[in-house]
């Protein structure tokens, strides 16, 4: 078994995320994004690598989209309506609601402003979205008989999800973009401790470690405030959803506190409509908002109004949110052209801009002139503020997630090659997990382990429960990374609550060792160990052609085979010369000899059971008897003596008492000296009293 992972996009780059994973005969496409930096065929993933004939329906089991950003969903209408994929598509409720807004916004920019030939139409978008099956968080969806998927909260933007997929015993998570720290309106990523063969994670900030978010927010507010106080205009190029809401909550709140009345505008149609969605999807925001929205809905912005084109050159300060982000064209570019030449104005740029956009040019150094095309030049004199907070996790967050999930393998996507290389190095050296960062159109093969399903008999199961109980229990499934990323708290399990426990003397304790869980390759969550590891369970696995293998207890095996146990014994019959046998043991000679021997043995050897009988001694399976049968078959020729001072000991034992037997036989061989010693002791004792 192996997982085959074909990276169609976001391999050693950011943009057009698309990974096709083959797992247990199923093929899943994670994300179907477009690259904002290209206008030619490179903007879409190379779908022909999935199927040369274009028969995507039979080659793909399903498509799963993690969130509404265009680098994750931008190519979807093209793939379904133009390339003709008709199979199931999954995304969360917010993504299904918001992705069409993003797509339509982008399509308009492309077609109306750049005058480009459209790749897909509005109808394509709507037709495509109609087929989407919405997902709720943690809902376990059975895509077909074998494939199970589940979405986990990823932070990042409203509705962003990390996707868990399972086929048979093979499991993986594809993170999409995620954020490990909560922001103004979203919570931090949350996931169960899953047992994973593969984790595919984004790595946008593979080497960045960020400090407090609070300071960075203040820096932004200060820059904006300073600009409007000086009568300047602030342009905030954003996409319709996500960053816009985050910054707007921040500004609206700040305006309220500072009692400012400079207008905040939204470019036409942008977030006024989007806020309607956000209000219905409040369940996907941060806990703080969820707790308070019935009293105050933070998406009811008090200071925000919509923008008219005529206001571009109106006098006085203002703040404007305009699409698209990264100033890749459209309205934000139009406003930029007007506002950039004045040093009073301010342009804020997101933390990340795709290569090829104006945003990217502004970020790399401080250009004073931007050439749009041969005839259009913009003089840039305005101030530029780069937002240093981003809805992506930083390197620490990535490492925390990997450490928490502790997968067998890691693949990095959605990052820059040199940074990915250095993070890969860290993951391999610090966590010891094999890590890869394939380029676009490369395939990585991941070996997986698979459990074997067997039957077990009741008797075997009971024999397991007879040993002491030991339980490992994770904290109820979810750990919030922002506070404590690896907390596992043990919970006691009541003996009466365990399965089939009537016969146990339960010795309960719980372990907090998380590696216990990952090493043992147990699926997540709550695990009860039914026998302590000191006491390994033993049984016999019976395998027969075309039947499920079966675990039975040893006793049952014989019954099953209808066979009788074959006992193997070792036996020796050997002489021991006793120098003064006659003089001190006239009558019950044998009996006394055995008793003496017993005393000696019990003080020199360790065994579970020892008892002296009239004619033999029993030490575990070892039986020692004085043999008077001269034809005893176990007497070998060379030790056939015939002397009154010699007695024969007949010993027999089982294999597992081999060590015990060899020790005892040595003592028996030296019985002569033992007896003499004990005689001496008996003689000396009275003398001591006399003195």
């Amino acid at each position, binding site marked *: 078994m192996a997982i085959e992972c074909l990276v169609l996009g976001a391999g050693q780059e950011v943009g057009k995320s698309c990974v096709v994973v083959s797992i247990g005969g199923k093929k899943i496409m994670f994300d179907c994004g477009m690259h904002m930096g290209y206008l030619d065929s490179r903007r879409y993933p190379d779908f022909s690598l999935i199927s040369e004939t274009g028969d995507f329906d039979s080659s793909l089991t399903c498509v799963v989209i993690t969130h509404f950003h265009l680098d994750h969903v931008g190519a979807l209408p093209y793939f379904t309506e133009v390339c003709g994929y008709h199979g199931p598509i999954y995304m969360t409720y917010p993504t299904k609601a918001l992705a069409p807004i993003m797509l339509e916004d982008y399509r308009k920019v492309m077609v109306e402003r750049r005058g480009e030939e459209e790749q897909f139409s509005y109808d394509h978008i709507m037709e495509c979205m109609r087929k989407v099956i919405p997902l709720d968080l943690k809902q376990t969806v059975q895509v077909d008989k074998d494939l199970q998927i589940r979405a986990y909260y990823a932070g990042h933007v409203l509705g962003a999800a990390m996707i868990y997929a399972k086929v048979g015993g093979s499991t993986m998570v594809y993170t999409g973009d995620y954020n490990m720290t909560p922001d103004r309106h979203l919570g931090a990523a949350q996931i169960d401790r899953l047992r994973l063969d593969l984790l595919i994670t984004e790595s946008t900030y593979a080497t960045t470690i960020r400090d407090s978010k609070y300071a960075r927010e203040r820096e932004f507010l200060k820059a904006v405030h300073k600009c409007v106080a000086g009568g300047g205009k602030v342009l905030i190029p954003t996409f319709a959803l996500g960053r816009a809401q985050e910054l707007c909550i921040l500004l609206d709140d700040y305006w309220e506190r500072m009692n400012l009345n400079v207008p905040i505008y939204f470019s036409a149609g942008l977030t006024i409509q989007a806020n309607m969605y956000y209000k219905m999807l409040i369940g996907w925001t941060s806990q703080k908002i969820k707790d308070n929205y019935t009293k105050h809905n933070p998406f009811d912005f008090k200071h925000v109004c919509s923008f008219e084109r005529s206001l571009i050159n109106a006098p006085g300060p203002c703040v404007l949110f305009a699409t698209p982000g990264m100033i890749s064209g459209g309205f934000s570019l139009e406003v930029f052209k007007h506002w950039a030449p004045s040093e009073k104005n301010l342009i804020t740029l997101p933390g990340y801009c795709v290569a090829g956009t104006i945003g990217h040019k502004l970020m790399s150094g401080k250009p004073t002139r931007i050439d749009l095309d041969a005839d259009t030049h913009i003089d840039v004199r305005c101030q530029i503020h780069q937002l240093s907070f981003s809805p992506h996790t930083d390197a620490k967050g990535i490492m925390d997630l990997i450490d928490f999930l502790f997968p067998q393998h890691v693949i990095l996507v959605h990052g820059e090659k040199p940074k990915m290389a250095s993070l890969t190095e860290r993951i391999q050296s610090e966590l010891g997990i094999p890590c890869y960062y394939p380029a676009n159109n490369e395939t990585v093969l991941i070996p997986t382990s698979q459990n074997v399903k067997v039957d077990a008999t009741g008797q075997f199961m009971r024999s397991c429960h007879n040993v002491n109980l030991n339980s490992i229990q994770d904290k109820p499934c979810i750990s919030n990374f922002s506070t404590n990323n690896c907390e596992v708290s043990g919970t006691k399990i009541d003996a*009466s609550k365990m399965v089939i426990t009537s016969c146990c003397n339960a010795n309960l304790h719980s372990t907090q060792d998380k590696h216990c869980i990952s090493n043992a390759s147990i699926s997540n969550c709550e695990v009860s160990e039914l026998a302590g590891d000191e006491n390994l369970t033993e049984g016999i696995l019976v395998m027969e052609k075309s039947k499920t293998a079966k675990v039975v207890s040893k006793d049952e095996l014989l019954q099953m085979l209808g066979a009788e146990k074959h006992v193997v014994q070792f036996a020796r019959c050997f002489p021991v010369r006793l120098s003064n046998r006659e003089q001190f043991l006239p009558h019950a000679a044998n009996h006394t000899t055995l008793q003496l021997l017993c005393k000696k043995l019990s003080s020199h050897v360790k065994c579970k059971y020892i008892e002296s009988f009239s004619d033999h001694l029993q030490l575990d399976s070892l039986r020692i008897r004085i043999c008077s049968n001269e034809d005893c078959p176990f007497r070998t020729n060379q030790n056939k003596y015939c002397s009154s001072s010699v007695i024969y000991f007949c010993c027999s034992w089982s294999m597992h008492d081999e060590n015990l037997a060899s020790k005892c036989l040595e003592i028996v061989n030296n019985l002569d000296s033992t007896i003499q010693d004990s005689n001496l002791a008996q003689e000396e004792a009275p003398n001591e009293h006399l003195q």
Partner: protein
Amino acid sequence: MKLTCLSHGRGGVHRPPCHVLELSGLRILLECPLDLSAIAIFAPVPSSSPSSSGDLVAAPPWYKAVAAHHLFDPCLLDAVVVSSPAAMLGLPFLARNPNFSAKIYATEVTARIGGLMMEELVAMHSEFVRYYGLEKRQGRPDWMKWEELERLPIELRNVVMGEEGEELGCWMPQYSAAEVKECMQKVVPLKYAEEVCFNGAIILKAFSSGLEIGSSNWMISSPRRSITYLSSSIFESGHAMGFDYHSLQGNDLILFSDLSSMNSTDYDTKPDECNSPPLRTDNDNEDHIIKSLSGNDENLEEIEKISFICSCIVDSLKAGGSVLIPIGRLGILLQLLEYISRALDNSNLKVPIFMVSATAEETLSFTNAIPEWLCKERQEKLFLGEALFGHAELIKEGKLCVFPLLYERELLMAWQEPCIVFSPHWSLRFGSVVQLLNRWHSDHNSLLILEQEVDAEMALLPFKTLAMKVLQCSFLSGLKMQKVQPLLELLRPKLVLFPEVLRPHCPIKEGGSFAFLYYSENVRLRVPNSRKGFEVQLATELAFQLEPRRLLEGSMAIARLQGRLLLSKGKYLLVSGKKPLKQSNEQMLLWGSVDPARLILALEERGIVGSICDDDKAADGYWFIQVSKPEEGLIKSSASETVISCDDERTSALIFEALCSVCDGI
């Protein structure tokens, strides 16, 4: 596994059935409702005008939990599973017991709405507290004294005591807001189809039942059994997500707990319809069943009822009467609001709609933010960017006014009659409905709308000289009987646990592909296990450690297995121990007999020379091999035993090894 049905309930939404399930040594309580119809024995808080409470108990009410509940030690429960908001109203009584340590499982929305309903109950109860003063918490109230009970009319006494006095112990003094809060903290909120595992042994999953927003059926699976716990379900709803029966297919057992038709009159509707045609088990047939089950007709029927109600409302309003709607079902209430406002628009009536309840505002705003839990049509509204329910718009337009209390200044300012008031509580004993009934009960133009489930005669006792019109409406509250058989066919269980009370009424064919067991109230039903043996997952690394050995005869191979047995997410898992497996012959288990000739060969391979003795020693089924090199020794063997004798330990070990190689063993 054992099942004890604690109560059948009343066949309605407000008092669902309640069971205890014993599974894999764990005890699970299914539902924890209150019998709120029982508070009809108490007189409402007297208003300024003289009232006619008659025989009713004039005391702050106690609340009646499900029968036999008090006999159940809460510390013995491992989990409580709750399917609908009404089914959790009795939880604080359990949870306030210091010995209660079970986890409570409910969907996120059931928990939220149930919590709001409890808050509302507490708020309404405070009307009594204000009137009577705070009740002392100790001892039984005076009305429970025998001589007081004897004075009650028989129908009231039966409500208090049950027919044989067995229900007297079910009464409890009301819980407090703090107890509700504490109880809610013990709830584990779930999404639909979210997997949750408790104690490693049992996995729970909720699927929508269609009854109410957030209500659910459950899949409960243990290592040896998978159970569908089927509560009252509705295929298509105008508000909640519909009945998700696909996800319940293929479980071993169905606990059929939809008793909604217990009291309904359409018991024996068209029994022939479901006996024919003969059912086949192919896909065509499955499609056919699905079509017959999940058509939209039920929903259309409900809409017809709502439309009829609307026309009655319009008539009353036109006649100058007001309309009072104390309906307790949230989904229906939300739908009614939409239809009423449309009906008002259509008839050009400008009449205000009020909603007077402590939790109404929060409930309404909550329902507009849970698209994941609603029917397809309302989810579509999310994708179009429209509000999920119409009430947001109504509030914005000022057509609907929401207030926590009557006699609030703002309410009085907005008040005008005739009007429409949504007002709790359906028992007509507390909540704003009491004052409004006092105001309107003698107005023959006014209209009161009740659910069928409410015993109207009893409920209206304190409002004598009733002139106002009463419209009682039976809304769908579960599966229709004729759909039960086809549904079961579709779900393909091996066994169905079915309520004995429904047996005479339900057109069920026995002798099909699944068996029936019938349960009755307060009888512990033992359910046999259908799976033989246990299913265990063998971890890969342990499988690789195995050293299988082929048996001398037959095609069987066996291997010794040593590992740790774990119970994880409802599955047994065998993994290798931390210490490496010790491989030695010491524990070797041998069986069968040994062929001396083969043993001689095996000895030779190990450099040992021996010969079979055929002297007189060989008797009684024994044979001997005399070993001569490298050391002298003897092997004595019979069908069930072999004795090896040799002075040299190394040689004996070699002989043993040779023996193992020619004998079946492990």
